[in-house]
């Protein structure tokens, strides 16, 4: 029963919300995409096992016709200690059975240094056949340079399993270039033990209650939030949610991807709201000098009541026996209900596989990458590393309750805006992060934020 609910809610979510499209396109999802998963859904819910079987039978047959033994190279960031590691290993093991003629050599690199590596590889035309990338602007630069293989032909085969809305972030000029894996949103994680101490059994749903809760926590000597100032992306997890819940998803999306001006009073007010929370000492003042690892350890150690960060944390929280029963997840409450509403989230599919245009076996690699992406997504979802970009199948009842809670939030989603630093071109993203860190350091206020960005970015 539980399993069915999860599957259907996720699907409902997929159909309902709209995702921002990159590459200057409109934010609207392709309307014809929605019916496809809808039609498939009942069948899957009824017989997920059967679905899997038919696929396994199909694929080798296809391959036998299509090819000699080839070797493909892949780079990714699923290092040994990464939470995605297991899903890659499991998926690749499955793929070996499905594609006996393809040998996959895959290498994993550390996240930050991978960015250097992949960019140098693009410059030198040394890309492997399949590579991990972040969607939107990061991949967009490579697409512009003509280094990425277009996946439109292969995608036709997978249309029923991969809703087209999920490809918005890796679609440029109407063409698809990426295989989305898992997707994540920003979640408001709460330590319920601490909330209870302040007299709350649930995470407050309205902004007024939420602020009151923070005050009550303060009164009890509990720090409401922890946020790592040394890694600016952690600050954006808070700031972007606050801006979105103040000015609405559509407006924020226009600013992030469609080139609307930053000179927006709503943004300035939202920044001031955020800074007010800082001046009221809702945030641990030490956070400005900490890394995310340290802040997260503090949160799990019961130092903060709330921690806003990506839902990829679900797997870690759920894996910690001492902590998993204390933690709950919710979305940030609405600040200005005339402009925003619940269900407007920050996040979307960003982790992506792409195929190099220079690959000698690009067509086979594209096919392989699609199939592999589906399996990685499947196992990643089961492991709680994120929500599936692909239509889920199989038994999902073992998924941890936190991830299930997130999928319910997503099911009720109205619209999603991708993380600002992923959505913007690299240089702009950096300027943006600069200003965000100045906001967190209280060096500029809301007015300074919008003026600075408006003049530096356009």
């Amino acid at each position, binding site marked *: 029963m539980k399993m069915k609910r999860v599957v259907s809610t996720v699907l409902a979510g997929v159909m309902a919300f709209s995702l921002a499209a990159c590459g200057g396109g409109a934010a609207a999802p392709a309307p014809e995409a929605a019916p496809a998963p809808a039609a498939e859904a009942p069948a899957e819910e009824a017989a997920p096992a059967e679905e899997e079987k038919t696929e396994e039978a199909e694929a080798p047959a296809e391959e036998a016709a299509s090819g000699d033994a080839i070797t493909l190279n892949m780079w990714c960031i699923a290092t040994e200690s990464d939470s995605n590691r297991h899903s890659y290993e499991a998926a690749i093991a499955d793929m070996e059975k499905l594609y006996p003629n393809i040998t996959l050599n895959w290498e994993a690199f550390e996240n930050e240094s991978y960015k250097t590596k992949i960019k140098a590889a693009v410059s030198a035309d040394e890309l492997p056949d399949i590579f991990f990338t972040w969607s939107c602007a990061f991949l967009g630069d490579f697409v512009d340079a003509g280094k990425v293989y277009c996946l439109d032909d292969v995608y036709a085969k997978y249309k029923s399993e991969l809703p087209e809305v999920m490809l918005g972030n890796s679609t440029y000029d109407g063409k698809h270039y990426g295989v989305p894996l898992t997707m994540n949103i920003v979640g408001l994680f709460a330590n319920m033990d601490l909330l209870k101490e302040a007299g709350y059994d649930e995470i407050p749903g309205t902004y007024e209650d939420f602020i009151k809760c923070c005050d009550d926590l303060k009164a009890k000597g509990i720090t409401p939030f922890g946020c790592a100032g040394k890694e600016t992306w952690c600050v954006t997890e808070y700031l972007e949610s606050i801006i979105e819940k103040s000015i609405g998803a559509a407006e924020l999306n226009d600013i992030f991807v469609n080139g609307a001006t930053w000179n927006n009073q709503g943004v300035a007010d939202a920044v001031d709201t955020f800074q007010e929370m800082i001046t009221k000492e809702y945030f641990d003042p030490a956070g400005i000098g900490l890394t995310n690892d340290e802040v997260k350890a503090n949160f799990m150690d019961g130092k903060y009541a709330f921690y806003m960060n990506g839902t990829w944390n679900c797997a*870690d929280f759920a894996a910690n026996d001492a902590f998993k029963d204390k933690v709950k997840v919710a979305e940030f409450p609405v600040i200005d209900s005339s402009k925003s509403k619940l269900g407007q989230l920050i996040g979307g599919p960003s982790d992506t596989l792409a195929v190099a245009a220079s690959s000698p076996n690009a067509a086979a690699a594209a096919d392989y990458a699609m199939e592999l992406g589906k399996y990685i997504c499947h196992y990643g979802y089961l492991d709680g590393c994120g929500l599936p970009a692909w239509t889920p199948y199989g038994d999902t009842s073992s998924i941890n309750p936190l991830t299930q809670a997130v999928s319910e939030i997503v099911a009720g989603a109205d619209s999603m805006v991708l993380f600002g630093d992923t959505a913007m071109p690299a240089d702009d993203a950096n300027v943006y992060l600069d200003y965000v860190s100045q906001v967190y350091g209280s060096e500029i206020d809301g007015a300074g934020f919008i003026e600075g960005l408006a003049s530096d970015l356009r």
Partner: protein
Amino acid sequence: MEERYTLKKSNPALKVFIYILLVVWAFINLFPIYFMFTFSLKSNEEIFGKNVVGLPHEWRWSNYSSAMGTGNMGLYFFNSVLVTVFSIAISIMAAMMATYALTRIKWKWAEMTNAFFMLGLTIPLQASIVPVYVILSKLHWLNHYSTLIIPYSAFTLSMSILICTGFMVDIPYDLDEAARIDGCGLWGTFFRIIAPLLKPALSTIGIYAFLQCWNEFMFANVFISDSKHRTLPVGIKALSGAYTTDWGPIGAALVIATFPTLIIYIFLSRKIQDSFIAGAVKG
């Protein structure tokens, strides 16, 4: 004879004070080693807050097995040793030959050429990554040990030449003359007379080049894409995940990377110091 001047007039109180200073400073410099070792046996909770500098509550030797097993540190260690040793060897050989030509053969542009080589001390590594990568890629010369060995020896070359110069100008020129009279050419003089006399320079250059190569990350990260040829710094970095990092095994890997060096250094320290002394003054 030497003792006389050092002991003369020395104020006992001052002496005690100086000893205290030396010992305190020694503790400050030994502390990182203790820290690194205990760090490698702790869990994230202890590292981040619960027990930062104390002995581990629970000695997690499993950090080592996970660094060796899943992290594959044994192979990376071997690769690092191989790459470092060959880089140092090539750098020393090229530097000795060049220094010979620059200091012991008289020619017009010697000083100019020397200045040209010193330019290498100023070049930031980051700036050359992409150009070198493009060159190596055009030559189909990626993913070998030599992919790292050659750039490393090039980057240590300037310093090696500088150090060699210090040693070489110290060798009396009469030796060259004598060798010449005995019928040695320039090559004979170099290989039979000069090169053996430069032995003390080896450890000075070796230490410097070792520091450069052993911890080098950027080239190793970009130029090497297969884990067969990965070196320690990249391997250690790969122990951290995108959003979650278990720091204990990283500590263990750092110990694996550092302790052998430290032990070798301790055994050879007297020799190393003597070689520094031999090459000094000329700067």
